[in-house]
């Protein structure tokens, strides 16, 4: 039963220049309270830093918060770098200010889930805990 009690490891990060960290910190607190092991990167990370940290820390998923409008550039770059490093099995999800029109394209590119303003916290927790079941 050791597997069932191993906490899921997730990297939560802020990528790009965006400093809006109110939402992401609440997500970190909620996930921790739910028993998820979190590596929080802090602000102003490059896609390269995010992917390097994710591989070093051997996380199962990466969750990125972007409120700056740079999502169409940053998510695809993280996906590309994961592929280059042979780490496509790491789930990428995210949240922030992402307009309707951009969601299908980002999901098609490989972003597993995008949480948008006013998402109930338990939806995010359920999603992350569900990742363990899928594995």
């Amino acid at each position: 039963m050791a597997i069932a009690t191993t906490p899921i490891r997730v990297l939560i990060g802020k990528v790009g220049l965006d400093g809006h960290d109110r939402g992401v910190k609440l997500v970190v607190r909620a996930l921790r309270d739910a028993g998820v092991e979190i590596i929080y990167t802090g602000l102003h990370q490059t896609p390269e830093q995010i992917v390097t940290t994710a591989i070093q820390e051997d996380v199962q998923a990466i969750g990125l918060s972007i409120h700056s409008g740079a999502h169409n550039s940053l998510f695809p770059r993280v996906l590309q770098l994961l592929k280059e490093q042979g780490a496509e099995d790491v789930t990428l999800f995210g949240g922030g200010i992402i307009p309707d029109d951009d969601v299908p394209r980002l999901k098609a590119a490989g972003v597993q889930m995008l949480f948008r303003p006013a998402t109930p916290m338990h939806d995010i927790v359920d999603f992350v805990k569900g990742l363990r079941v899928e594995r």
Partner: protein
Amino acid sequence: MNERKSRFSSLSGLDIERVYSPDHLKGWSVEQDLGQPGSFPYTRGIYPNMYRSRLWTMRQFAGFGSADDTNRRFKYLLAQGQTGLSVAFDLPTLMGLDADDPMARGEVGHCGVAISSLADMERLFDGIPLDQVTTSMTINGPAAVLFAMYLAVAEKRGIPFDRLGGTIQNDILKEYIAQKEWLFPPEPHIAIIVDTIAYCAAHVPKWHPISISGYHIREAGSTAVQELAFTLYDGLTYVDAAVKSGLDVDAFAPQLSFFFNVHNDFFEEIAKFRAARRLWAREMEQRYHPKNPRSLQLRCHAQTAGCSLTAQQPMNNVVRTTLQALAAVLGGTQSLHTNSMDETLALPTEEAVTLALRTQQVIASESETVNCVDPLGGSYFVESLTNRLEEGARDYFKRLDQMGGMVAAIEHGFPQREILDASQRYQKEIEHKERPIVGVTDYVEQETRSLPILKIGPEVEQEQVARLSDLRKSRDPFKMAGSLEELQETAACHQNLMPALIEAVKAKATLGEICAALKEVYGTYREPVVL
């Protein structure tokens, strides 16, 4: 009859009783605590006539895409009756980076306008009379550089600096606390702010060299009391630094300005503006004994709360913004930005920003709320709230004093943690439906109504990068490099940076080059992560 809830509380968690009476104002006096408008302690407003003489400045924060895109928006807003300009810069500019910096990829022109050089600044204000409109610039880390560009534009056009009016936000403490866009460690950052304060006192007398901001503290999740406390304490920290540098308090304090959020709790917000004026006047009087009464007056800009807007049923945002704007007016603000209904989704479209401006115009022209100064003064409830906000802020002042001041408190993560805890409480209250939000927790509609939104295409970044490349080819490289060396020497010798910055921007050094040169002298900042 039973009441609907066992406890009624303000948005910030203050208990609210059923009705207020003189019993709630024991020890409060009309002479000491209320006073007259335009007189100490300025609870009722900083001017005797307030809006009977002059309405607030209607100043919509605007900026997107290239300098030319934003210049067109500025001219449109002025044509619609806006009375002042307010520049929103994009994230690379806010972080002191050029549009072609690797960290800027995907961010250019998205959150505001991209300004990397003096040439960009000239295009931003093309055809706009800088001696006739006042301009506010939301810029902090690299504020002195952008200010130098603005001054250089005026100089080129032959406009004397003493005819320029406006504001640079230039408040780095709230960046460390809440907004999170910084360049250097606190000590040199505060020294540069003091340079801008001293430079304005000597050369640009109608300019506000700083807008000490609670807006972002509130947006990060603080309560009204925390917004009030941290903002005013930040203000006192700057005054202290300026006085310690040798400036006379009356030489600069009349040029200080403040910036507050206006959130959903109508009366609490009105009380916050009143408490802010009274607390600032009292603290300045007690700590610095200024001779000029203007040194005691808290002047402020206000913006409706972006974090109160919802992506669901976005037209409801117009109503929220109207109530918040009215609270700012009843609170006695000097200028106001009203958010557009589409701002949870993107920067506002022209149609949305026009409606937001019209909201202010309707309040000013039609509601007749501008006729009487401080119309809620003397209300048992509002006076009681004003007292409680002032007391709450004073409690924080004591704790901050004990920690050795704001810089030390930030290094310990104190204000950051207080705000995060408050934000978590608020989030839980919403999720438990203790704070209903129309269209989100209640009255939810299945069908989504979407608004047209403003899109920034990739060509904005490509064109800005090309312009920078042309600029670098066109300039005299020796003159440019010499100006940066001069700047570094000035910084290393702790001389006032402003003259050297003006020379550097005129020598066509870019924003990113200037900030990189200064980082070599000052170092960079690493945030203590608070979770």
